[in-house]
């Protein structure tokens, strides 16, 4: 006690007497010098020791478990890894209606070992899960000894919170993402779907998976005692939110098309069908529907047949629906004009060993009349008068035999034969749409060329914003404008009284279109009673805005002609589309003059469509060899056509 007091006084004393000696304090107090030195050295060592301790804790590794340990302990209490969610992009239609939305769902899982030890708390858990206690204990027993079991998968966050709020140890949550398809089966094949890991598997989900996919990021943050984030330390990995995708389709049109197609498929007991509606000016696909379809939200009973986007992938032999393009070739040749009269009597015409037959003897018909009645004889006579490559050339120019380039997975390019030498019969069948294969989408694109006045626009399944819209230039021209207009004019007659497509008429609008009925190819060549019914048309006829193609495959009812099966679908769907798109009627509509199809009256009157049944009527026995043809699909049918000489 006494010594401390003297020491505390020392600094003031030593200051004044510092010149007298080396250890004035010691002498003054009468202490021996060594004791003073020990104290001074001892006091000097203490801060050094403190410094050493600090250094050993903070700087030097391997001493006292090293600074890493302490730093780690500190970080464990403060530094947290936070997830920055990156969702998969939303797919919408052109007006922003959602077609595919990802939303987080929670899966509740448990550690059965922990759960087993808390058996008294299982009753409320079972109640919250909505299962019986015995079921829950049974499941726990089943997973006994394991470390993981799902209690409930993919439930809404609200349901999950209710379970977690019970505070039962060993119950945890896990965030997953689930994709919902609000439009369901209406857009199922086009939009496609994702797998359980949110990766695109079909359709646009697959085609644009890269840009749609979102990736969660992580950042390191400091949290205080209350769990609040107080400082952003660094970004571990940046999040990448998926980009949204706006498709070109208009859900209203899509829905209308789907409803009418489904009704027709059911009514005519058809196997399948497709409708494509195209915006003439931009090339955007406004609707693309298929039957049969499936519910992408519930894929437990998925039928793979229903998954195909038939409109883009499935090949059909188009039949007479190609006749307007044959007329283009005819007009381009300069040998014909729309009013050139061709005598179709006596109603059949022989090419090589085949005879092409009309439904009845139409007598002399002009080109418009041939199209209106879909005369086989007339078309064949025109084909015979043209250069062998002329018709194929037109088909190729409007995009047949080439992929439409929409990027849709599995999109088909169709098949357009290319030959060194064209036999007459091949030229004739090509003229009325046999011996080639197209997709409904390609048909729509081809009719789009006629509708736009001869320029070819690339079809798009993605929305094209008005500023990105390409104005068709002369470089895109594939058909002379005047000829496209002429053919459109001719196609109007198809819907007039006596034409094959009267049921496609839309009150208030002028429609240009063409019907088609083609025989399906089976194992033994063309089948007598299996057909594809088609209708393709454009409205308003004088300055078309829309092109629609209806394909109904294998109707099993009594009616199978394109004009009876597909044309009414066209009429209903397009009428609704025109209303939705606010396209004004182009003809005044006094009610009495409207052509409204009645079930009975047109049936007898309806001219017969192109059908190879007629082609085959005079086939010789040599054709039987075709039955042995083992080449599938298109090649088979092409061979069947070509091998008939």
């Amino acid at each position, binding site marked *: 006690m006494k010594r401390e007091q003297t020491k505390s006084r020392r600094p003031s004393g030593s200051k004044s007497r510092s010149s007298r000696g080396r250890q004035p304090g010691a002498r003054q107090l009468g202490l021996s010098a060594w004791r003073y030195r020990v104290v001074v050295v001892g006091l000097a060592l203490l801060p050094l020791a403190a410094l050493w301790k600090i250094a050993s804790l903070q700087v030097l590794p391997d001493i006292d478990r090293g600074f890493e340990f302490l730093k780690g302990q500190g970080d464990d209490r403060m530094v947290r890894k936070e997830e920055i969610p990156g969702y998969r992009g939303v797919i919408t239609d052109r007006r922003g209606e959602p077609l595919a939305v990802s939303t*987080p769902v929670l899966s509740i899982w448990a550690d059965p070992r922990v759960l087993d030890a808390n058996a008294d708390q299982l009753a409320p858990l079972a109640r919250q899960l909505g299962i019986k206690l015995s079921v829950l204990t049974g499941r726990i027993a089943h997973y006994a000894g394991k470390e993981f079991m799902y209690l409930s998968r993919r439930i809404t966050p609200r349901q999950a919170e209710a379970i977690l709020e019970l505070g039962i140890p060993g119950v945890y949550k896990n965030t997953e993402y689930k994709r919902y398809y609000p439009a369901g089966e209406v857009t199922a094949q086009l939009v496609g779907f994702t797998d359980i890991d949110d990766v695109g598997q079909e359709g646009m989900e697959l085609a644009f998976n890269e840009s749609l996919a979102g990736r969660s990021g992580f950042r390191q943050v400091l949290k205080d005692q209350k769990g609040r984030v107080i400082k952003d330390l660094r970004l571990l990995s940046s999040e990448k939110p998926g980009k949204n995708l706006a498709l070109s389709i208009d859900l209203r049109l899509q829905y209308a098309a789907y409803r009418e197609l489904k009704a027709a498929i059911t009514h005519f007991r058809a196997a399948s069908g497709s409708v494509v509606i195209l915006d003439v000016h931009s090339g955007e696909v406004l609707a693309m529907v298929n039957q049969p379809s499936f519910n992408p939200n519930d894929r437990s009973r998925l039928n793979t047949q229903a998954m195909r986007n038939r409109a883009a992938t499935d090949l059909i032999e188009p039949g007479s629906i190609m006749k307007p393009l044959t007329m283009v070739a005819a007009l381009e040749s300069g040998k014909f004009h729309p009013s050139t009269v061709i005598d179709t009597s006596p109603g059949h015409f022989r090419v090589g060993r085949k005879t092409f037959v009309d439904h009845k003897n139409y007598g002399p018909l002009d080109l418009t009349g041939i199209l209106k009645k879909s005369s086989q004889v007339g078309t064949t006579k025109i084909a015979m008068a043209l250069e062998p490559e002329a018709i194929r050339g037109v088909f190729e120019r409007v995009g047949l035999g080439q992929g439409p380039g929409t990027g849709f997975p599995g999109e088909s390019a169709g098949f357009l034969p290319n030959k060194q030498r064209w036999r007459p019969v091949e030229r004739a069948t090509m003229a009325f749409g046999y011996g080639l294969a197209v997709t409904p989408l390609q048909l729509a694109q081809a009719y789009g060329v006629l509708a736009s006045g001869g320029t070819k626009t690339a079809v798009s399944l993605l929305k094209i914003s008005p500023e990105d819209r390409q104005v068709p230039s002369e470089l895109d021209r594939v058909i002379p404008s005047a000829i496209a207009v002429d053919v459109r004019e001719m196609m109007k007659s198809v819907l007039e009284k006596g034409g094959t497509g009267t049921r496609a008429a839309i009150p208030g609008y002028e429609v240009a279109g063409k019907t088609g009925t083609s025989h399906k190819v089976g194992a033994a060549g063309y089948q007598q009673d299996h057909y594809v019914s088609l209708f393709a048309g454009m409205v308003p006829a004088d300055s078309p805005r829309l092109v629609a193609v209806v394909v109904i495959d294998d109707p099993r009812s009594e009616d199978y002609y394109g004009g009876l099966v597909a044309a009414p679908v066209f009429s209903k769907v397009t009428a609704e589309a025109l209303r939705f798109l606010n396209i004004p009627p182009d003809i005044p509509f006094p009610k009495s003059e409207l052509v409204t199809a009645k079930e009975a009256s047109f049936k007898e009157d309806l001219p017969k469509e192109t059908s190879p049944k007629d082609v085959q009527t005079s086939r010789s026995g040599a054709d039987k060899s075709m039955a042995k043809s083992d080449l599938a699909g298109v090649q088979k049918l092409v061979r069947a056509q070509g091998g008939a000489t």
Partner: protein
Amino acid sequence: MSQASTILGLSLSKVMAVVWLLMLFSGLSVVYVSHQCRLLYSELAVLEQKKNGLQVAWGQYLIEESALASLHRVEVFAQQKLGMQAPVLDQIVVVKP
């Protein structure tokens, strides 16, 4: 010497005192500002969390909305419950601007 010991007419010791005070003030300001920063940051974090929550809710509402307003449902409702129908041709009046 006298020049060195005065700055702006103040003696060196007074200047030192002022500088010390300024330093003290600056130090305390740093403490205050970093505290404010943390408060604001935690608020930001809370808001961000809220934003994520709202994003989730938005997605769910979007799904709910499009399920409730699905064209099929609207059509059935309009036709069966409200007795509505699409206008037939002579009920439509085309208005030209």
